[in-house]
């Protein structure tokens, strides 16, 4: 089961106060970067839920986010719905799509699961790329942001919007935690550790996977709605598999299956991207090298590395034995 160690609480407090501090001190450009981090953080939380805790490495999450953005924009501008209604409908659509993808892919494992989700993601990409109704490869102009005038907040102000995204991220973090602590989350952990045993115990395995994938899809959809409102423009590029690949890189960079790690990863990735692209146009080269180094070091990302440092030595030994056994188990399954 997912637990908060003091270290995780400390990391959350540092991240949260860092975000608040930035929101009240940064200029326009800093605010844009902060909002970008917050939206990416929602997406990678969704991905960590399925990949880190469910062992379902998805390359469809970028597409789910993009689907959320497209559904929101189309419903709000073409159908003329109220932004709140359009957003709720868009999230419901991505949840349903995620559920269906999860249900279909539930039987596949390892590289086949990755490929199956990739297929569904690219299907969505191609669809929106071709459909002139949705603007084709030109994309669409996003609608106005949510109206929070009734509580005196104007989201067109970039600080208010950043704080709004922070609040949403906080809620989503709590929801993800609640999911992991619920019966569904515990079943998911069981399935990840030993699917056959859980099936023998009478658990409906595909149902668990589909439900979690659907919930994760809903979160990705929320990220999509916010992204559409943030940049006020959407294009099929949001659905491309490389977006999912980058999200996966962020999760790994931060620390898979820790919930806190991906948040750290999102901060590190976006800051690294912006800082490096000032210095050199070849920032992908450095990101690639960092990624290779992180994976080869066998630490579980930046946060996993820190956690391993802070853990008492006996714990560390138990952990290393456990991971070795887990690795054997996974190798046997593959």
């Amino acid at each position, binding site marked *: 089961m997912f637990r908060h160690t003091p270290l995780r609480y400390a990391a959350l407090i540092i991240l949260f106060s860092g975000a608040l501090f930035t929101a009240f001190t940064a200029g326009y450009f800093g605010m844009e970067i902060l909002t970008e981090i917050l939206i990416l953080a929602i997406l990678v939380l969704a991905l960590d839920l399925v990949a880190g805790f469910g062992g379902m490495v998805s390359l469809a999450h970028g597409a789910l986010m993009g689907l959320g953005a497209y559904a929101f924009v189309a419903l709000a501008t073409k159908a003329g719905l109220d932004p709140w209604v359009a957003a709720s409908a868009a999230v419901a659509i991505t949840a349903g799509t995620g559920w269906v993808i999860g249900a*279909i892919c539930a039987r596949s494992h390892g590289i086949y699961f990755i490929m199956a989700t*990739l297929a569904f993601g690219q299907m969505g990409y191609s669809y929106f790329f071709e459909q002139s109704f949705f603007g084709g490869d030109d994309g669409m102009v996003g609608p106005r942001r949510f109206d929070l005038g009734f509580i005196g907040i104007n989201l067109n102000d970039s600080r208010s919007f950043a704080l709004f995204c922070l609040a949403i991220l906080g809620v989503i973090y709590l929801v993800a935690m609640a999911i992991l602590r619920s019966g569904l989350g515990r079943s998911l952990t069981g399935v990840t550790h030993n699917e056959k045993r859980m099936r023998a115990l009478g658990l409906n395995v595909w149902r668990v996977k589909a439900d979690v994938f659907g919930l994760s899809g809903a979160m990705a959809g929320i990220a999509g709605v916010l992204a559409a409102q943030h940049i006020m423009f959407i294009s099929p590029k949001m659905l491309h598999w490389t977006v999912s690949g980058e999200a996966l890189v962020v999760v790994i960079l931060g620390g898979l299956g820790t919930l806190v790690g991906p948040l750290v990863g999102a901060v590190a990735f976006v800051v690294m991207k912006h800082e490096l692209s000032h210095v050199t146009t070849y920032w992908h080269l450095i990101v690639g090298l960092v990624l290779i180094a992180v*994976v080869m070091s066998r630490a579980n990302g930046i946060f996993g590395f820190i956690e391993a440092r802070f853990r008492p030595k006996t714990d560390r030994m138990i952990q290393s034995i456990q991971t070795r056994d887990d690795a054997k188990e996974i190798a046997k399954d593959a």
Partner: protein
Amino acid sequence: MTPDLSFWTMQTLNALQLSMLLFLLSVGLTVIFGLMHFVNLAHGALYALGAYFAATLASHAGFWVALLLAPLGVAVVGMALYGGLIQRMRKSGPMAQVLVTFGLIFVLLDLTRIFWGDLALAITPPAILAGRVDILGVGYPAYRLFIIALGLGIFAALALILSRTQIGAMIRAGVDNDDMAACMGINVERLFFIVFCVGCGLAGLAGAVAAPLLSVTPGMGLEILIPTLIVIVIGGLGSLKGAIAGSLIYGFVQTFGAVLLPGVASILIYALLAAVLLLKPVGLFPAKG
């Protein structure tokens, strides 16, 4: 225009040409996976590297030298990658391998940009292949026919090597059960190394062959990666038969889809992949049952 014989001939040849290009790429990837259980996402980047090597060599030494040396150059890069990275990643799970090779894509992509710049390069096919050949009343570019012939030739050669030679038998044994093969006295590590280098060389060859057809850009490796992965997953990992079947399916669905059902063509191939994975979760002709 009403589809007539020349239309069908033309499109069939186009489909075959695309299939053969994909076959050259996917066969290396699929055998590497079948033998080593290694997921090499950087295979497409090696293809791009092959195209760049070919473009540079062709401008200095002519097309045929480029066609011969570019795959060798890529095989040497493959050797370095094997020694530096792949060997160490062999025992890790598929997730770590996917990520390391994903990182490798970034690195190789930017390295090609640093060495060759962002502009597209072009090479002209040699004079002997520059014209058109008349087939069933259709004037078809000779160079594309050359690709089809080359692909079929490589397929025949690989089929012969795998089924008739000792090293072929060793590779089949390794794909079937590498531990057992090692017990029987086969040097599996050396086998892995050879197969990996040959696979990289074939990717380089595909890049060199594709260079005169498409323009050589840094992004070409990323563009071809997904079709290649689709081919090997539809065909089933690890088998030559799967690679050729997957390539033909992809080539024909893509080509005929684009001319007959333009609206849904790009979705068609992904739908097909999803359908295959649903009905036969390990592909059509997997190496292991």
